[in-house]
């Protein structure tokens, strides 16, 4: 119990000791590290205090990481795949409308296109006009929530 009182203050935020131990690489018990990571993943106040502690950053050898350009390209590619998978989920009609609307159809890599059951999509579209409009509207809402316009810009 004592360890947690050292790492969390009475308001449930991370203490200076927790942040200091973390930033200095002091050994921290596994479950405590998980709790610290969980707290940092949602608390603005503690993430700010922690990142301030990490400034300036000591140099570190990162040659094992792929070059930045490779990661950036991979991110863009995975972004497109995710976008298209999302399209398949929210409805082919909504996806098509959005692509045409944003004028980005030509920038979609055909290899990344998900397998869409065209027959089923066609039947769905012809089911009823009202349903179709609703589907487009719902699909667009979800797509915008996903904030994915960027994949058409890059």
């Amino acid at each position, binding site marked *: 119990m004592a360890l947690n009182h050292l790492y969390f203050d009475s308001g449930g935020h991370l203490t200076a000791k927790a942040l200091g131990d973390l930033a200095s690489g002091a050994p921290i018990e596994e479950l405590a590290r998980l709790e610290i990571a969980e707290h940092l993943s949602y608390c603005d106040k503690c*993430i700010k205090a922690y990142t301030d502690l990490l400034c300036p950053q000591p140099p570190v050898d990162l040659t094992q990481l792929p070059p930045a350009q490779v990661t950036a390209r991979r991110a863009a590619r995975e972004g497109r795949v995710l976008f298209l998978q999302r399209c398949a989920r929210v409805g082919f009609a909504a996806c098509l409308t959005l692509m045409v609307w944003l004028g980005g159809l030509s920038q979609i890599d055909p290899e990344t296109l998900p397998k869409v059951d065209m027959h089923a999509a066609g039947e769905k579209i012809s089911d009823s006009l009202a349903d179709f409009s609703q589907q487009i509207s719902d699909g667009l809402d979800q797509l915008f929530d996903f904030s994915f316009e960027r994949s058409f810009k890059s």
Partner: protein
Amino acid sequence: MKNSEFSALIERYQSFVFAVCFQLVGDKEEALDLTQETFLSAYRHIDTCRAENYRPWLARIAANKAKDFLRSAYQRRVTASGGEALEELPARGGPEELCDCADGVRRIREKIDQLGEPYTMAARMYFLEEKSIEEISTRLSRPKKTIQTQIYRAKQMLRQSLKEDGYGT
């Protein structure tokens, strides 16, 4: 953001992101993987973040990745050794399970108060008020998985504390 701009951002912040991942997971190889994953996730939402906030924003994504990694690593290890996994938590262990005695609830209440934050409120709601993880998460504005971990931890500490007092198992 264009790919070239994103490459420049990676170059600028990768040591920083690596440091966050490494400090949280304590393993270089895992930290390298998590650094990559952090940037892959960051790309999807980069337009929602202002440049002056990149450091805390990236640190937060990295902490999130580290949290997922630590959680599943802990889960695997505990499950393999026959312990109680984090995910099993919703199978509620009420006060009577923790302390099979006449003044159990009163004692539990005291012990819960002694836990301190971030555990007391979550544990009180879970063990005494029998609220669901979802409800506690909403009430305390903390992610559901964080509440799960905090209840798990609280339960561990309560058991330990009651054991020291000669109660329970």
